[in-house]
């Protein structure tokens, strides 16, 4: 039989994968807890991701570099993923499990929407992500850390919202802005100075790009805009009408102007 009646109606796609295709997901049980902790610099790590709330919604962004120890691991990594038309996830930590979790989370949210014929609430999504992190805890203890920021437009609250997480799945809501990753502290300092409640989308974008620059300037694990290779941070803007990616030309001209100002003093 293709369908066990007890299976019908579940809107939890990960549960289905665990039963039908456990080979497609990392299983915490398969990692021996007593094994020595894996050294972080064998993996891709080092990041700045951030989100900021503005008048009509929220902006979520991340740099593009993955680091392996003192080496550049990858220059074009994507750290911000669209989840559905009203939310996105940004990830910090070890690249493999991070990308996997973002992909599975997106699949789960879409699966729910298709099965139920209605969208999961923003808090419902945030809470599901929390459960995924909880399941990941044994892997996190081995050094395979995933720390996401989840942001979206909440139609019920009619505003943008930001959720941050710890490795145990703890979920905390931020009212204004947040940044995570090795350059997170520098980005937060920049956002702290630039954030204003109810700021416009343009001002918020400005703050985001400034914060990413400050993080890249101070943190070895975060890449700045790469004018040579035309690689720029990923920036997604979410409001009532949906999600869109900021134009790379806009970002490029912002940084060209910034550098000119910095050179001229």
């Amino acid at each position, binding site marked *: 039989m*293709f*369908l066990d009646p007890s299976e*019908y109606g579940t809107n939890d*796609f990960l549960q289905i994968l665990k039963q039908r295709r456990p080979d*497609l997901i990392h299983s915490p049980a398969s990692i021996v807890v007593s094994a020595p902790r894996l050294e972080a610099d064998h993996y891709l790590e080092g990041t700045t991701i951030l989100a900021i709330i503005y008048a009509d919604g929220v902006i979520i962004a991340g740099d593009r570099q993955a680091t392996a120890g003192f080496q550049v691991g990858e220059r074009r990594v994507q750290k911000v993923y669209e989840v559905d038309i009203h939310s996105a996830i940004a990830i910090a930590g070890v690249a493999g499990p991070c990308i996997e979790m973002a*992909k599975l989370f997106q699949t789960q949210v*879409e699966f729910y929407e*298709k099965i139920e014929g209605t969208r999961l609430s923003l808090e419902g999504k945030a809470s599901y992500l929390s459960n995924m992190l909880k399941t990941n805890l044994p892997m996190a203890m081995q050094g395979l850390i995933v720390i996401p920021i989840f942001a979206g437009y909440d139609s019920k609250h009619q505003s943008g919202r930001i959720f941050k997480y710890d490795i145990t799945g703890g979920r905390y809501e931020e009212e204004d802005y947040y940044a995570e990753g090795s350059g997170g502290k520098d980005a937060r300092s920049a956002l702290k100075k630039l954030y204003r409640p109810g700021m416009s989308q343009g001002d918020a974008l400005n703050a985001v790009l400034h914060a990413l620059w400050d993080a890249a300037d101070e943190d070895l694990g975060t890449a700045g805009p790469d004018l040579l290779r035309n690689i720029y941070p990923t920036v997604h803007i979410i409001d009532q009408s949906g999600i869109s990616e900021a134009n790379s030309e806009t970002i490029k001209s912002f940084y060209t102007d910034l550098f000119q100002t910095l050179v001229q003093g």
Partner: protein
Amino acid sequence: MPSPYYVSPEQIMQDKSEFVHKGIDQAKEVIVLEYKNGIVLVAENPLSTVFKISEIYDRIGFAATGLYREYESLRFVGIRDAEIKGLTYTRQDVTAKWLTNVYSQYIGSIFWQMDAKPLEVELLVCEVSEDATQPNNIYHISFDGTFWEEQSSAVIGGRSDEIAQILEETFQTGLALPEAINLAAETFATIENSVDEVDRYNISPETLEVAVLDRHQNRRKFRRLTTEEVAEISF
């Protein structure tokens, strides 16, 4: 111990077919038409949250008629297996042809099981091609698991033959979306007008369920039209 009576396989299959026909000959119809930007799916359905048309995966849509409980579980299986296939390989590898085979095997195996009730369903699995120069795919799956490809338009439900006959004369390729939706609505109205007034089913934006597979949309081509949107287009 007395041996069971012998009944020929032909007899059993004929009985099963008759049984299923009794059910699905009453089923309300779904019309699927190609239009300029893809495929439009239109169903007679007065319910606003219980659907006959659904999104399965990026380019693939699903339309069903018959017993809701049965096609709902087929819809679930389709979405589930499509997501699993997409994760195992890539999203591009999930196709209507593959899904049609899955359904065909599933429905067929139940039909041929001696002690099982056959499924009282009829399905259309549609895939819009991202490239306008390439053909779309529409597969028609019958209650016994047999399936065939449809060109440009397809109908499932009790009076599908009559509707197909009307469409043969009225359908044209390259319709704009409002034209295609209107054509489907008018066809439903024509069919309903041939019914006694007592049993007649009123066709209005509230009683139509409409969705499109629009190749110009991003990854997910499926979009459900609201009653307001349908009302603006037709009537």
